[in-house]
C-alpha cells in the first residue's frame, strides 16, 4: 500500500499541513500547495451545492408528510414540507457532503471533513483499499499530538514534531 502525501486544510481554506510520505506525485512549490488548498476548499463547497435534487412526486410527498411534519427540519436534509422546494437528495437521511473521493489514473484523493470543518486530504495509490483506517488514524494522531499540544495555535500551520514522528512511524509500520 502506498500513501503519497497528506494535506490538512483548516476551516477557512488555509493550508496548515503538507507532507510527502512516498514519491509518486509531482512536487509543488509551497505557494502552489497554498493555492491548491484554497482551490480545493472552494471546489469542495461547490460539489456539495450541485448535488442533484430529486423532485418528490405527489404520491411520495403524501407518504413522507406524516413523518416529517412532526420533526423539526434538519439542516442538510431538505424538508419535503415546503411547497416549491419539494425535493429530496438521492440518499435521503444522509446529509449532503462535498467531494469525498476523487480518482485519477495515477492516484486517489480521499477527503475527510471533520465536524469542525478541518479537511484531511490523503493521496494514495488508486488500488489501495482500507483508506478509512488510515484516515481514522491520521485524525486520531491529529487530535492527540496537535490539538493537545500546548504550543499549537488553532488554525495555524501545524509544526508538531511529535505528530510528524508518530504519523511517519505508524505509516512505516503498515507497509
Amino acid at each position, binding site marked *: 500500500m502506498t500513501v503519497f502525501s497528506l494535506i490538512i486544510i483548516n476551516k477557512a481554506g488555509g493550508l496548515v499541513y503538507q507532507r510527502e510520505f512516498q514519491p509518486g*506525485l*509531482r512536487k*509543488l512549490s509551497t505557494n*502552489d500547495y497554498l493555492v*491548491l488548498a484554497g*482551490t*480545493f476548499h*472552494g*471546489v469542495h463547497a*461547490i*460539489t*456539495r*451545492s*450541485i*448535488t*442533484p*435534487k*430529486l*423532485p418528490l*412526486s*405527489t404520491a411520495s410527498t403524501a407518504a413522507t408528510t406524516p413523518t416529517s411534519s412532526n420533526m423539526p427540519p434538519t439542516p442538510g436534509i431538505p424538508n419535503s414540507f*415546503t*411547497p*416549491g*422546494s*419539494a425535493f429530496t*437528495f*438521492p*440518499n435521503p437521511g*444522509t*446529509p*449532503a*457532503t*462535498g*467531494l*469525498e*473521493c*476523487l*480518482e*485519477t*489514473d*495515477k*492516484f486517489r484523493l480521499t477527503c475527510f471533513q471533520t465536524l469542525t470543518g478541518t479537511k484531511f486530504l490523503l*493521496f494514495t495509490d488508486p488500488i489501495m483499499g482500507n483508506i478509512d483506517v488510515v484516515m481514522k488514524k491520521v485524525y486520531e494522531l491529529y487530535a492527540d499530538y496537535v490539538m493537545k499540544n500546548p504550543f499549537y495555535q488553532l488554525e495555524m500551520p501545524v509544526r508538531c514534531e511529535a505528530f510528524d514522528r508518530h504519523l511517519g512511524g505508524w505509516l512505516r509500520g503498515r507497509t
Partner: protein
Amino acid sequence: MVVYSFYIFDRHAECIYNRRWVPRPSSMIGKSSRPTSETSTTTNTLPPVLGHSARTTDDDAKLIFGTVFSLRNMVRKLGGEDDSFVTYRTSQYKLHYYETPTNIKFVMLTDLKSPSMRVALQQIYINLYVEYVVKNPLSPVEHPGGVGVNNELFEESLEQFVTRVLS
C-alpha cells in the same frame, strides 16, 4: 443505476449540451438550453411553482464546469500532464468525467451504485457525438453564444443509450 444529468462543454468552456433525467419545476429551466426531458415515471405532475432557490440549469452547468476544470488542473499539477481525473463521489452522487484530445469535456452525474462510466462516456463521444454531431454537415463547428447541439438524431440515440444500455 440512475443517471441524473449529462453535460458537454466545448473548448471555449461553453456548455453546448445538457440534459437531465431529473425534472425540475418548469420555471427553473434556462431559456437558452434545450428543453429537458422527463422520465416516464415522474411526469409533469408538479405545478409550475417558483423555486425558493431559483438556480437555473445554466448556473448548474457553470458550477459543474468550474468544478471539473479546477479538479482537472489540480490533478494535472499533481499527477503530471498525462494524468486525468476520472471520477469523484460525495455522499450523494458520483460525477464522471471524460475529456477528448480536442478538449471537449463530457460530464455525467449518476448515483453512487454506478460503476466507472469512463467507457460509456467514451462511447457517447465516439458513437454518438462524432457520428451525429461532428459528421453532420449542418452542425456548426463552433457554438458561439451557446447555440448548442441541436440535433434530433443525437438526442434520441443518447436517450436510448442512457435508458437502455446503462440502466
